């Protein structure tokens, strides 16, 4: 058997507003098709039903946009970075932008297992005064624990939010909108969704926000505080 040489590439991509209602699986499929169209020499799995070897870091909740999606794919040829970058970029649909690409040398951990922190920015409009939201945020920051009822179609359970928070929840007013910045832990046992933090604040403060105008963006996905592009 000749030894199969392969080259792993890691990419940093966006998922913008027009694609935020595409599920994680469908997002992966659209990237896969873009790679096909780009005619990159990708490596497929062996077997009866070969598929592209493609892996992603942490999945994104439906409705959330992102500046920091990460994926890895494997090529059978050692192509130079600009060539792969340009070919792939030209085939990505509106709403996905290739921000960075790099060939990964040597041993490295699975991308899936790397991310341990996610940062989000939540912006919304509200009729309540900023001060009410500021009070709610500072109460949240000072509290030992905050419980939230998570409802899924299957069951309802209480989760404690504070255990997942890294640092302080920040709030600022910007152009008539309120912006929250949160940094949360991603653990094997789970995490908290940014929308849940917002819901918690709404309930605890008795304030309301305009549900048709909420935007949540993942601004970073990190490992030990470093961008996933820089961690092996």
């Amino acid at each position: 058997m000749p030894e199969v040489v392969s080259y792993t590439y890691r990419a940093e991509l966006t998922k913008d507003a027009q694609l935020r209602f595409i599920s994680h699986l469908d997002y992966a499929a659209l990237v896969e098709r873009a790679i096909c169209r780009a005619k990159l020499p990708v490596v497929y799995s062996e077997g009866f039903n070969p598929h592209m070897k493609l892996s992603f870091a942490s999945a994104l909740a439906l409705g959330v946009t992102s500046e920091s999606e990460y994926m890895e794919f494997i090529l059978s040829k050692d192509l130079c970075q600009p060539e792969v970058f340009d070919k792939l970029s030209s085939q990505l649909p509106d709403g996905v932008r290739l921000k960075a690409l790099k060939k990964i040398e040597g041993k490295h951990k699975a991308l899936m297992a790397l991310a341990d922190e996610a940062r989000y920015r939540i912006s919304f409009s509200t009729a309540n005064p900023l001060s009410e939201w500021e009070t709610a945020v500072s109460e949240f920051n000072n509290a030992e624990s905050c419980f939230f009822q998570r409802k899924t179609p299957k069951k309802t359970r209480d989760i404690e939010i504070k255990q997942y928070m890294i640092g302080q929840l920040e709030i600022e007013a910007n152009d008539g909108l309120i912006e929250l910045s949160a940094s949360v832990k991603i653990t094997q046992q789970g995490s908290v969704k940014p929308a849940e933090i917002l819901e918690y604040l709404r309930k605890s403060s008795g304030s309301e926000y305009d549900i048709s105008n909420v935007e949540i963006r993942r601004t970073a996905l990190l490992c030990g505080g470093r961008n996933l592009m820089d961690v092996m």
Partner: protein
Amino acid sequence: MVRITSDILQSVVKPARYTGNEWNSVHKKWEDVSCHFALSMPDVYEVGMSNLGLKILYEILNNREDTWAERVYAPWIDMEEEMRSRNIPLYSLESFTELNKFDFIGFSLQFEMCFTTVLNMLDLSGINVWAKDRGDDEPFIIGGGPCVYNVEPVADFFDLFLIGEAEEALPELVEVFCEWKKEGRPNGRGEFLKRAARVRGIYVPSLYVPQYDEKGMYTGLQTIGEDTPPVIYKRIIQDMDSVATMERPIVPYIDIVHNRIMLELFRGCSRGCRFCQAGVAYRPVRERTESRLRELARKMIDVTGYDEISLTSLSSADYSCLGGLVDNLMNDFSCEKVGFTLPSLRIDSFSIDLADKMQQIRKSGLTFAPEAGTQRMRDVINKGVTEEDLLKATGAAFKKGWKTVKLYFMIGLPTETDEDVIGIAELAQKVVNHYKETTGRKDVKVTISVSCFVPKAFTAFQWFGQNTLEEFSRKQMLIKEHIKDRSIHYNYHDAHVSLLEGVLARGDRRLSGVIYSAWKNGSRFDGWTDQFDESRWTRAFEENNIDPAQYNIRERAFDEVFPWEHTTPGVSRAFLKHEYEKAVAESLTKDCRRGDCTGCGICQKLGVNIVDWGKERA
């Protein structure tokens, strides 16, 4: 421009149905074009996006500089609720423009059970559902697709119909429109419709007034205007190689019913099954050349990134050089992991070998359509398949490792006896036994899916009275009683739906009131089992004083004039009558594809020829 806020999208299932902007979707500037055409299927996104005809027309229209074709599908119940409660009108998926701002809305009518969804979509767009009520500022509503061979039940809701293949006729219509528009829309919409009626293949129902005698029997049509053609023959493409077609299919963001490239090998099927309307409607057979097919496959893979191509046709295995084509395609794409599938398998071992070579996924099983349980019955319907053929084909499949087989049948066919019905259970049993004999094992699953026969316009059985509900139910139970083996799984269709289809498929214009009432009573998505509610239709018939049995159950006289005969595929009535007589006599008619002409009259009437590369070579 319509804006759908994120809270709406957050609350409905599959929000990507409503957000558009897919790869290969076409975007133009609204002001830059003179004809705005919304192409639609009265069904959900996943179904509408899978329709080959609409994909073809999307490209043909968008290749014109003066036209922008956009898409719109029926919002599912949850989205409709959101839209109605917030007064959001139906909009197009490209420019998010309200549908009532378009020049045309074209509906592809695939089956009768979509009719109420058409009305619902018009209503959601704020467009008058009755054509006669539409003003000069409203779009022209045009219908196409297989239902045009009897559109009378919905004729009052449409401004025009396109009969037959639209690749050439639709651009001609657009030209007439642009001309009329450039002249400043003289004399309003009536003038345009008059001009449109002169385009071959266009039917403008308001120019035809149905006549009935004192007993209420249909006697014919009175045409309005001097040059209104009394009969509209279908349009047909002679040369499938040179006609403009799909080359850049849209790649959806979510999974759809046919989420793959459709490569249309040929159009038409001349096997001559006597129950089958498509077999008449798409005649004669016209193949594409292998080189054109390979060229199209290459183009479409390159611009989509799909990894699967379906070799589409009414009966793909009949393509004259299928074996060679498959070998060459597999070769062309050997480095790219492109898979190929055959949507319909012929009942022979050639098809099995091919399916095996193409590595069709085994878990989904194989599907065959013997249609009837006994040889006698199969001779009546001219299904040229014997029991031996079926056992040979399934035997070949079992040897290659398949364990599940699905068999399609119909009940309620002309001359059917209980013996024929029981024959369905018996044939399934024979397939099960054959598996045990071939493999020595018992782990087989044979599913029989039994539908209730609906007689259709322009078939040999267009005179036949459909079975009653009681008769269908009795036959469904009869099959059940005769299934003795646990390996046989039995599905049967809801006879209520088939009986309603039976009414609409051979109905006349008086049914428009019934369809309107059914929609008012809440009907839409009638083709979806979980949405269909029989009682809405029962009430609709009562409200309009119409006895459905007059349309479906009644056996029709050979000299009766039919309300659908003016929009025709060109088949001769004498041929159909002769076929019915031959059916009763259990006598077969041969396939004209490679043999002699059997006299259906379509080639002569329309001035077209069969194109079959196997026949050329022979």
